[in-house]
């Protein structure tokens, strides 16, 4: 990694750390001043992580080949049945095997 890239990496890690601290303090020191919160607003706020995580993961499904898509569909199937770690290990194992055989 070049010097400029390393510098911007440090900036991003510091900014991200500051943002996370804001997340952790804002609930107690900011959000609580707006209580009671309307139930629709609360539902929308609670949906933020799922909605954003889904959006971030989508390009992998769009850009990936059939093996990657199979692994993602398998992860959905396994994720509803097994623990987080087991489902992750199994879907990753499936991906590795498929790549070995067909890749």
């Amino acid at each position, binding site marked *: 990694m070049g010097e400029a890239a390393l510098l911007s990496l*440090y900036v991003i890690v510091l900014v991200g750390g500051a943002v996370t601290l804001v*997340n952790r303090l804002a609930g107690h020191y900011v959000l609580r001043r707006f*209580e009671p919160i309307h139930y*629709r607003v609360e539902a929308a706020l609670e949906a933020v992580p799922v909605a954003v*995580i889904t959006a971030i*993961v989508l390009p992998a499904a*769009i850009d*990936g080949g059939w093996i990657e898509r199979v692994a993602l569909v398998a992860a959905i199937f396994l994720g509803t049945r097994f623990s987080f770690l087991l*489902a992750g290990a199994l879907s990753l194992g499936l991906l590795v095997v498929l790549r070995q055989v067909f890749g």
Partner: protein
Amino acid sequence: MSADDGAYDLRPAGFRDGVSEVLPFLLTVLPFGMVVGALAANAGWPLPVALLQSALFFAGASQVVTIELFGQGQPVWVIALAVFAVNFRMVLYSAAIGRKLEPMAMPRVMSVLYLLQDISFVMGLKQAERQRLTYGYAMGNALLLYLAWIVATGFGVVFGNLIEDPQAVGLDMLVPIYFLLLALGFRSKPNSVWVFASSALAAGIAYLAFGSPYHIAAGGLVGMGCAGLLARPQDREQDRQQANG
């Protein structure tokens, strides 16, 4: 003010309980910390930066998001917004647990909040329900996880550097799979299927039409809107009972 709020008490009440009750969770925290470290190493991050990130973030999903988006060459503000959104649950945790921390002095409240994450949040609420959430319990609980997280990240970087062909072990797909499973973990929440589906649809359209990073904002906003529109007042009550149960 109670006895355990004494500023010079080196063994605050409940510290030992906080540590011992969180021990089983190391089984999940250590592997995840190693995964995050391996991903950072795979993205070319030097060890000190990976350790600094774990010390400052102490939040796996947002660390993975940062590694992923930095690798894509996204600008700082996009990464900052993504981190804020992924860690948004902490805002809600902080509001809920802050109530239980109220008798403590502000530096103590802040240090508990600095180390707040999913496990300590749930354990803290349970402890508050059982007797009283003391500073010692909260810190014993969170500090062990914090140290374990940093150490695991370090090991992950070392092991990640040993992997010669990341593609062969599926490291490039670990992030999407991890996020997918993370999103699935929320499926007991009301209307989560619709949030998931509407976010995926909006993100897909935005990604194909405008490209990155607009898909993140599109998916996030549409998913939020969907949750707001479908929400019913009674869901909140049901949700609270689940959290307390």
